[in-house]
């Protein structure tokens, strides 16, 4: 160095320095894809950047709500309800919203697979796969009636089911060889219809007309029958005052969300519902009570029930006779009413008896034909009676089944393990699964022919008579999957004689042929046009007249409650319950359904065991203790959550995982054969260990603070706080003041809004570890507050999200203006300006801001679901609810194009859009005629923590409590 001239910078040094500077300059975020690929031929309907909507149907549960799928550049990004559909009327539940993650599930099979000799799955071509199946079926169909072939399917009330039946017929199989499995089938209700009205079908409940609703463990806002429709109709009668308002009484051992919405909870011992129902029926029919206007059969029923021991009823159910009399009195007075049940929570060994008693109550009160409607069940592909399932399992165990075709049924994973379905399937030489995602049954399958997702296929689903919802592919299949219909057609074409090909070119031809039957007498171009219009509308929605039914006097033995069993005093009733997010194990691979915390326990991801606080105290157990639950069937270890909404004699376990299936015995309802979910007793032992649950809640006790308010039905107004002194003038908003009103009398806590928010706003899923550390990313959450008063538990729910304050405490503390109030009254959060001090979150009294603790990940192909109108936030950035500003901007854009102001109701945030109960109303508070302004003026309206002078844009309408009747 010393040789070099001092004043000259060496070339090497220069290059080093220049390189370092270049490196510095290249530290800016990496650029995205730099290639622009043109269309070869542009699709006519697609304008890049503009959403394209398709109507289809949700297949997550049998309810069959219509769906509007929003697609962008050929991929579906959001599901919303179809407003034309009479069942969902534009709303979707949490499961429906999460269907997208089933479509984009990273673990979906990417094409057909065959299990090799080593037991590992290997990809095969579709040709080879279908040829292999056809070859395997060859010897089987050579036998009389293809005795060794069975098909096990979920209910397929449409084209798929029809084709399956045709296929089986081609094989020469009898209809019995196709078994339809639905573990949650409401067989007792179906059986009761047959017994009482000679109608072996499910009724439709019209809650919009019911003045009092009594639910025997039927969790109709979460999972029962048709939750979106029932919740909407029920909520239609809420938010009112006095006699106008629909009253709900919940009878069950655990307060599920329906129970939380109830005005009164009769806490029965698990299995005691039948006693209550019979006692209620007896009271109503008893001539001594002079109930006017009862059905003519009341007298004879009364005679049948005279033997009912009311004292025993009180003991067996744990409900006082006075409570029953009070409820009966209300039912006698307030008509029409609706009595619902049984649901999973009340399906035990005597579920059919309960269903019969319930329908008899409905009958004597005149509800049948008014709120309880028969003749609307299309009886399209109803689940097979349970004996048929048992016979299949027996046949498999006995080695009588050679080929089992499994279509979206998971007997190995969704049935109680005590039924030993997995062992039975293990004895079948060839198990063929059409499932598109791995489950317990595909693990036993030798051949996997992954079906397309409902969002990738055509079908015509008949969920109700007169209503046929048409599903259609909303995008090209994500992977090399093929619709099961197409596969059956392909296989049939390769079958040797005596079977032959199915008479369809392809699955679409079959679908078209089938949908043509919806338009009798129409043909040619007119038919094509009619089919096109129906597809655009999402289905054919006709009105069907309700059929009158008449009562058949039931077998008197049905009205005799079961003899009390000897109970092991040390054991607790095992209550298994489904929730809106957790019901069958297929939800396990759907991140949104596991990440979003359960409303009542606030647990996400892991299962838990619930105990009443008194029981926990008696057993010396506290929250987070790991306990061993043992039944005759098995044992599991679970962490305990105490929940005051549980009967003291019970321990409750949520569905959706293996745990309840391990614990459940192979018990069935004695008459309908339905799985008896509530039949076990469990002993609970402490392990002495603790296991922290991913639980996102401090305490459900609001400590005497008026965060969530309730009003009595008699005085439905919230006391208005004194106007706080103002140091600075109130902010005004020249353009709009976007505002929201949330009616907590309507809100059922179903969490559809929460999942919709995840979907709309690219909210990342962080996983259980992050949840344990309190790093939930949800922009919207339902906060439960509980109190025990007069011996009963009240739960009040508070949907909590950014309040878009006029005087937002989060704003002035941000050093870089990453958050501020804009001219439309929005509390803006500019992600790309945020440096991540988290001061805003600290200063937010609602704690609704969420921080990106880590780089969010959207494993492929889940990234295809990302909404292109919303920034994907990176680590270190604060984010929060924006009132779906992208939707506001889209509506403003349209309005400007049309040179008009934005109309009231034109902007609908994702949460409000999907709310089945229509509890959320959004609009411009600057416009005195808007719906939201009217609700802001409602007497029940208040601001949470309004005393802080934050001037929130969200007005909560206090829940009405109608308890003293």
């Amino acid at each position: 160095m010393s040789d070099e001239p001092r004043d000259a910078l060496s070339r090497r040094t220069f290059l080093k320095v220049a390189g370092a500077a270049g490196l510095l300059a290249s530290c800016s975020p990496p650029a995205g894809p730099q290639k622009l690929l043109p269309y070869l031929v542009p699709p006519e309907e697609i304008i890049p950047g503009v959403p394209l909507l398709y109507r289809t149907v949700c297949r997550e549960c049998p309810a069959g709500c219509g769906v509007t799928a929003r697609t962008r550049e050929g991929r579906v990004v959001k599901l919303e309800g179809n407003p034309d559909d009479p069942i969902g009327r534009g709303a979707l539940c949490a499961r429906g919203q999460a269907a997208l993650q089933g479509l984009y599930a990273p673990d979906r099979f990417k094409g057909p697979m065959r299990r090799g000799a080593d037991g590992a799955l290997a990809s095969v071509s579709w040709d080879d796969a279908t040829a292999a199946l056809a070859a395997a079926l060859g010897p089987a169909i050579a036998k009389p009636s293809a005795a060794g072939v069975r098909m096990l399917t979920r209910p397929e009330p449409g084209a798929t089911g029809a084709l399956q039946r045709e296929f089986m017929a081609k094989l020469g199989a009898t209809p019995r060889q196709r078994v339809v499995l639905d573990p949650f089938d409401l067989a007792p209700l179906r059986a009761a219809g047959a017994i009482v009205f000679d109608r072996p079908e499910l009724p439709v409940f019209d809650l919009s007309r019911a003045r009092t609703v009594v639910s025997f463990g039927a969790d109709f806002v979460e999972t029962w029958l048709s939750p979106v429709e029932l919740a909407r109709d029920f909520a239609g009668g809420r938010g009112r005052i006095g006699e106008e308002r629909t009253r709900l009484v919940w009878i069950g051992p655990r307060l599920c969300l329906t129970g939380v919405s109830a005005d009164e909870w009769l806490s029965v011992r698990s299995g005691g519902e039948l006693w209550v129902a019979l006692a209620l029926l007896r009271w109503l029919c008893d001539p001594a009570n002079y109930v006017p206007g009862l059905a003519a059969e009341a007298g004879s029923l009364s005679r049948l029930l005279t033997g009912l021991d009311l004292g025993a009823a009180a003991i067996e159910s744990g409900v006082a006779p006075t409570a029953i009399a009070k409820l009966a009195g209300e039912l006698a007075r307030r008509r029409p009413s609706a009595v619902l049940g049984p649901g999973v929570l009340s399906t035990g060994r005597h579920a059919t008896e309960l269903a019969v008693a319930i329908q008899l109550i409905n009958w004597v009160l005149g509800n049948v034909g008014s709120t309880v409607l028969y003749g609307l069940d299309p009886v399209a592909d109803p689940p097979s009676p349970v004996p048929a399932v048992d016979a299949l399992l027996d046949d498999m165990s006995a080695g009588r089944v050679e080929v089992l075709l499994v279509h979206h049924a998971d007997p190995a994973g969704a049935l109680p393990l005590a039924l030993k379905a997995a062992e039975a399937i293990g004895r079948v030489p060839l198990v063929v699964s059409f499932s598109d995602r791995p489950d317990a049954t595909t693990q036993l399958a030798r051949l996997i022919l992954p079906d397309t997702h409902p969002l990738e296929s055509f079908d015509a689903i008949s969920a109700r008579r007169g209503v046929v919802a048409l599903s259609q592919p909303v995008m090209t299949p994500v992977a090399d999957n093929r619709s099961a219909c197409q596969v059956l057609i392909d296989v049939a074409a390769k079958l040797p004689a005596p079977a032959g090909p199915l008479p369809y070119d392809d699955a679409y031809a079959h679908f078209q042929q089938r949908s043509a039957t919806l338009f009798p007498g129409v043909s040619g171009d007119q038919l094509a046009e009619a089919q096109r219009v129906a597809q655009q509308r999402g289905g054919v929605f006709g009105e069907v007249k309700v059929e009158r039914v008449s009562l058949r006097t039931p077998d008197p033995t049905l009205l005799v409650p079961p003899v009390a069993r000897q109970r092991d005093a040390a054991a607790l009733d095992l209550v298994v319950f489904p929730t809106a997010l957790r019901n069958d194990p297929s939800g396990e691979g759907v991140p949104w359904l596991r990440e979003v915390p359960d409303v009542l326990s606030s647990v996400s991801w892991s299962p838990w065991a619930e105990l009443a606080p008194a029981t926990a105290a008696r057993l010396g157990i506290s929250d987070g203790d790991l306990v061993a639950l043992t039944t005759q069937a098995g044992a599991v270890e679970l962490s305990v959550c105490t929940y005051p909404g549980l009967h003291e004699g019970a321990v409750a376990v949520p569905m959706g995982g293996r745990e309840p299936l391990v614990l459940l015995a192979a018990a069935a309802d004695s008459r309908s054969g339905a799985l008896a979910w509530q039949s076990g007793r469990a002993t609970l032992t402490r392990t002495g260990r603790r296991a922290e649950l991913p639980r996102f809640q401090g305490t459900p006790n609001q400590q005497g603070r008026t965060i969530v308010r309730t009003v009595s039905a008699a005085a439905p107004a919230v006391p208005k706080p004194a106007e706080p002194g103002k140091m600075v003038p109130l902010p005004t908003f020249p353009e709009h003041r976007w505002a929201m009103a949330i009616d907590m009398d309507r809100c059922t806590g179903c969490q559809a809004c929460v999942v919709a928010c995840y979907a709309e706003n690219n909210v990342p899923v962080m996983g259980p570890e992050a949840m344990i550390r309190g790093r939930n990313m949800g922009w919207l959450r339902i906060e439960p507050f509980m109190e025990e008063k007069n011996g009963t538990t009240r739960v009040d729910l508070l949907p909590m999200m950014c309040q878009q304050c006029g005087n937002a405490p989060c704003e002035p503390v941000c050093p870089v203006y990453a958050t501020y109030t804009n001219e439309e009254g929005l509390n803006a959060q500019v992600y790309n300006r945020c440096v991540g001090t988290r001061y805003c979150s600290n200063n937010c009294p609602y704690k609704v801001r969420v921080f990106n603790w880590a780089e969010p990940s959207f494993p492929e192909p889940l990234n295809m679901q990302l909404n292109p109108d919303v920034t994907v936030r990176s680590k270190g950035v604060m984010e929060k609810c924006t009132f779906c500003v992208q939707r506001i901007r889209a509506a403003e854009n349209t309005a400007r194009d049309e040179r008009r102001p934005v109309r009231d109701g034109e902007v609908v945030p994702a949460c409000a859009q999907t709310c089945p109960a229509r509890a959320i109303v959004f609009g411009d508070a600057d416009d005195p005629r808007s719906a939201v302004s009217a609700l802001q003026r409602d007497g029940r309206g208040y601001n949470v923590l309004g005393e802080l002078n934050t001037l929130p844009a969200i007005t909560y309408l206090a829940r009405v409590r109608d308890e003293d009747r």
Partner: protein
Amino acid sequence: MQPERGVLGVFAEVAAAAGAVRTLRKGGHAEIRFAAPAPYPELVEALGRPRSRLDSVTLSGAALGVAGGFALCIGTALAWPLMTGGKPIVSIPPFVIIAFELSVLVGACVNLAALAFSAGRGRRRRAVPYDPRFSADRIGVFVVGGDLGAAERTLRAGGAEEVRHVA
């Protein structure tokens, strides 16, 4: 830099040096300087130089800081008005804090600059011959101009350990 002609006395005692300075001043010597390891008040007093005039400079620096602080806050708030927390765009109370901090900052910096300038200039204009002992344990009293002989005598009489003429 060439030191002026003068006579330098080296003292080991503060009081002696101070006494010598006083005597020199009485003797009519106008230009008396010293170099010392510490600002011994006795000595400084004896020299009787006027107080430093850094006040006005420093004060104006602080004033500049206040003005700059307000200008910065108000100017940037108005440059892109964003409402936060319903507070006025120009919120004076928080701006006072910035103005205060800047007044201290600018004041201190100006004070430093003024010190560097004045002390440097003083060191050059009223130089004292360098002697490492003056930063350790000796005091140098330097007389410039006038009757250097008389000065030398006074210094010796005052107790200087050593007196020398500087050319």
